[in-house]
């Protein structure tokens, strides 16, 4: 396996231009996700899904202001953040996939083999981030491939390439993590004390994310789970519980058959 690559998305640099969303669709021939006005700031795609592999979230925050008007950036804050599949170290989607359609590439990324996927849909509820989903009328599931076809030929992913402000940084995961920590330090010095990393920690519930983020507020504000855990972490225990239950059932049968007359 070659060096593991991933994304560091620095939301403090994001200008919400959505070039990443468009570039992804152009390159990967992802169909449009429906034309719906959501009335949720400038976000009209809503969330990641089978036909949205990059999604830019827009969060408007305001300290209450008096109708006398007159405020400055001080009391309005507009957070923007480009979300994507996390390419988890422990990827639930991949682990529960019964066909092996989901696999880990030589770059440490998680990709669906569309010719193998049988649409069982197990990966969908397994993902703790609600990333992967089934496409209507197609039956198979789709998600970010981390541009497997591009990085294979030493091109950077389409979304990162299109990002005008380097909010999306692509590269070897280790390097990205060091950069990210330095960046947070910098921001704290500048007084941006709310800056924090999300998904950079290999000891977290998914073993660290291949695509991690620098956020300015709690993850849930961006629609991200605050403490995601790969569901298979409890799998062994679950099997034990099931085993016990199986025995109990056997016992119940035996008791009812032998434990009485006729």
């Amino acid at each position, binding site marked *: 396996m070659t060096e593991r690559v991933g994304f560091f998305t620095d939301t403090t*640099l994001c200008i*919400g231009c959505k070039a990443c969303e*468009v570039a992804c669709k152009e390159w990967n021939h992802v169909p449009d996700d429906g034309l719906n006005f959501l009335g949720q700031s400038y976000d*009209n795609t809503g969330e990641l899904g089978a036909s949205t592999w990059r999604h830019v979230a827009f969060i408007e925050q305001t300290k209450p*202001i008096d*109708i*006398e008007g007159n405020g400055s950036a001080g009391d309005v804050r*507009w957070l923007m953040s480009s979300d994507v599949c996390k390419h988890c170290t422990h990827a639930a989607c991949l682990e529960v996939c019964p066909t092996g359609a989901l696999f880990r590439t030589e770059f440490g990324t998680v990709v669906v083999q569309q010719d193998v996927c049988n649409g069982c849909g197990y990966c969908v509820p397994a993902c703790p981030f609600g990333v992967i989903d089934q496409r209507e009328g197609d039956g198979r599931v789709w998600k970010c491939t981390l541009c497997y076809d591009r990085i294979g030929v030493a091109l950077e992913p389409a979304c990162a390439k299109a990002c*005008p*402000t380097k909010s999306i940084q692509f590269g070897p995961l280790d390097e990205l993590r060091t950069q990210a920590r330095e960046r947070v330090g910098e921001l704290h010095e500048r007084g941006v004390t709310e800056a924090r990393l999300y998904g950079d920690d290999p000891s977290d519930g998914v073993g660290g994310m291949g695509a991690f983020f620098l956020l300015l507020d709690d993850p849930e504000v961006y629609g991200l789970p605050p403490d995601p855990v790969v569901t298979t972490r409890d799998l062994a225990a679950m099997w034990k519980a099931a085993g016990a239950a199986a025995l109990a059932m056997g016992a119940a049968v035996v008791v009812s058959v032998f434990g009485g007359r006729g």
Partner: protein
Amino acid sequence: MGTSFGRGGATTFQQDLQNADCILIEGSNMAECHPVGFQWVMEAKERGAKIIHVDPRFSRTSAVADLHVPIRAGSDIAFLGGIVNYILENGREFRDYVVRYTNAATIVNEDFRDTEDLDGLFSGFDEEKVAYDISTWSYEGADVNAAAGNRDKAAQGEAHGRGSTVESDRPKSRDETLEHPRCVFQLLKKHYRRYTPELVEQVCGIPRHLFLEVAESLCANSGRDRTSAFCYAVGWTQHTVGVQYIRTAAIIQLLLGNIGRPGGGILALRGHASIQGSTDVPTLYNILPGYIAMRHAHSQVGLQKFIENIGNKYGYWGHLDAYLISLLKAWWGDNATSANEYCFDYLPRLTGDHSAYVSTLRALDGELDGYFLIGENPAVGNANGKAHRLALANLKWLVVRDLQEIESASFWHDSPEIETGELRTADIGTEVFFLPAAAHTEKDGTFTNTQRMLQWHHKAVEPPGDVRSDLWFAYHLGRRIREKLSGSLDPKDKPILELTWDYPTEGRHLDPSADAVLKEINGFTVGDGKAVSGYEDLRADGSTACGVWIYSGCFAGDENLPARRKPHWEQDTWVAPEWAWTWPMNRHIIYNRASADPDGKPWSERKKCVWWDEKKQEWTGYDVPDFKKTMRPDYEPDDDARAEWGLRGDEPFIMQSDGKGWLYVPSGLTDGPMPTHYEPHESPFANPLYKQQANPVRQTFHRKENPYNPTHGEPGADVFPYVMTTYRLTEHHTAGGMSRTLPFLSELQPEMFCEVSPALAAERGLENGGWATIVSTRTAIEARVLVTDRVKPLRVADRVVHQVGLPYHWGTRGLSVGDSANDLFPLALDPNVHIQEVKAATCDIRPGRRPRGAAVLGLVDDYRRRAGAS
């Protein structure tokens, strides 16, 4: 820009923003409209620069700025004038720069009267003509009679992208102590004395502390060691005083000494990929290539006299003869001889105002037979869309060359007027010819981008089917016309028959070679056909030909320089001279002589750009010096020195007749030598400064297709209590022909919407995600509602005013359709460049969708009646 500095283009380039210590973005939504260029603002921010965004809305630009200052749309001159006053009252100007490099010391004609004296008017206002006689504005002792006398020179506007042609003599009287009561510096002081922080708060709705923070940031970040940059775009230009907005910025940047220096300047963010090119080359009706003024029909002057009148004795306009004669040689080749004044008489002449809007109204009156629409969608993109669609429906023929069948080509069957019954397809006589146009990916050619940079694009794919490039169209149209006329002895056909029309063609479709065209633009010596190396090579003796003198040099050494693609990280300086080619002469920061002090030394190590090299006896530096390379800093011209040699070695503004940056514009503008706050044509407020409410010489059209909302002071004004403004979204492009037709863009902003504050939503019962109807005397449109704190109610004068934000991208065709914001706006224009005021007008807003069909007319009539405007 032209009138202040001499050239109608950005004084700097986007990459240079990274050197700024403070960037004021005002009248521009740069992050959304120039996202790629915006990376350099982010770079500056990372380097510690302060980013300020002054805008009615908190936009994606404000989101990453250090400071957002909400302002009432249409009040910027009060705000900027306040900054001028702050600088002058506190002596924060960059003295040495101001004294030597601007016209601050120049003394003005004693007959000049300021708006302070005449309550909002300058001297020379003519009641009937509704125009200024500008003769009293001139410098003391200047040749004013000629100015008054020669109409060819009057009303030189921003469109001409150049300064005065009036001062045929160097200003005689200057006072470098800046004390003389009639010197420009004192006039400025007087003119802006009343633009206090209190007034700014009262007019713009900007609290004092915010205003002072901006003013102080600019002053603190300007001077020898520091520089501040301005970025503006159409948030400034689209007003009835648009040109004066930019003038005010020019005054600030000159006072602070920020022009011609790294990290300084004024970045005019242009629009369409080649809109800069279309004014350089140009596609404007009233100027010749390279901002050479056009001749008027009634003018009888010959070539020499014309050159004397239009050209300048001093500065580079002193070579107008070479530029113009080379142009004539390019057009009429061997037919252009000294004997026939190089076919000077063949040049088209101005018979009047043929600007787009005026022509549209003539079409409404049936005075126009046909129209070519090449890359424009006025049915959506132009103010008062209804007037435009009615005009299109009143033509005999219409040719539309576009990538898509846009609203301007389909109005006859799907325009809103068809829905209301104002138009009936059967009654429309216009014969529409739709010709599919090749996109830039399907043809060779150049863009001239926002920073005067010519960038070559290669044809990536052959245009499909009947699709052809515009160059193909123009060339073959000309060819066929010439074939039809061939043999004609009618003198009126000679100018066409004698044109050089011989571009080599290539490919299946016989496309004329774009390279050949670029070479002609660059210019060549007639003798051997070799490309000239720049406009200094051009001659007035017919030995050279040149299509666009300011572009001369782009093909030097017979090499297509705009096609250069060496990335900046492979080049030595941030200027990256080997990436494409920038006019003039690949100079990136123009007037950069000003980056050195009068003795030719950099003002400071930190802000070095070009300087005088005593050893080499020439100007050198990081950028190409925008100055006579060999002119010593201490050079003094003698009386009969002419053109560039008529200027001193310490006069950086080499296009100006006096080599100075103009704080005061003695001529070249139709509405005043110094910017003055006027209310927009439609405003809910009185002008607190003067009796004169709005720009006295603004262009208005009082006719039934173009009713106006009553403005403040007129009865019925309260029927339209809100201020509306329009703007762009990153997700769409202008009139939408290139974005509403694409699924990936349409899904990102699928519907027309309006942005309102929670307070206004409460006041009018609007619900987020619901529908609203916005009404003016022109029409009523519907939009989805986005209730957001990003739009703030402002306290202006004595009350709170609400602003309604409207993106203007929607129309009746494409994947994402919706009502057009432009249908709400009137035709009220800036008198210099005829730009429509679509950034500030009044409206009413109500919950729910608009009535369908003819019922809309009923609603609007009702409003007109209530406003007494019908």
